[in-house]
């Protein structure tokens, strides 16, 4: 029990899933910004 309670959150190596990272990188690659009449439009190209 002492071992369990001695581990704080900051000591545990917490990382997001690989799928989440892949989604973010794919989202970024697909996202394009288009300037049209001084307005910016977000376009997602799949």
């Amino acid at each position, binding site marked *: 029990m002492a071992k369990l309670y001695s581990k704080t*959150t*900051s000591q*545990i*190596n*917490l*990382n*997001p*899933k690989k799928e*989440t*990272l892949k*989604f*973010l*990188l794919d*989202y*970024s*690659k697909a*996202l*394009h*910004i*288009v300037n*049209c*009449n001084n*307005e*910016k*439009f*977000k*376009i*997602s*190209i*799949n």
Partner: protein
Amino acid sequence: MQKELTADAVLITNYIRGNEGALETLIIRHKQKIYSFIYSKVYNRDIAEDIFQDTFIKVINTLKMGNYNEEGKFIPWVMRIAHNLVIDHFRKNNRMPKFDNSGEFSIFSVLSDSSLNAEKQIIKSQVESDVRRLIDELPEDQKEVILMRMYNDMSFKEISDKTGVSINTALGRMRYALINMRKIIEKNNMVLTN
């Protein structure tokens, strides 16, 4: 310390210039710190995952839109976004009834969720916002007809009465409004689907 801040700034500049690899380096460098921070507040891996994802969607959108002011404070900025999303999560959670599914039978096995998920909601709101901005670009008379017909659900007879033009003119303005919107969409290869 200073070296790392400078490196972040360089990566951000490279990313804004189109180097997608720079974003990957930034995420890998800071993912543990940000994810651990979120988890330390919500104590749920799935919720932490969602908030981490939403945090970086905001980061990506802001950087690509050119709305980020580099002051060597990338990490505090990202942590603030994450913190605000955690607060949003708890606010939303307090308003929603909770269902404790502790028995063997899962009610969710017979119920399907037909509502939009988080990703689709984001896409839907972005599409709606883009369409609204497209409408704002139209000439005033065409914009007026579109808003009355599509947003106020008025008939062409009602539009005709309200604007003091004939039904045919109102129909014509609607037609030209749609043609002009299509032109802008095609010209810029815009995708407005969910």
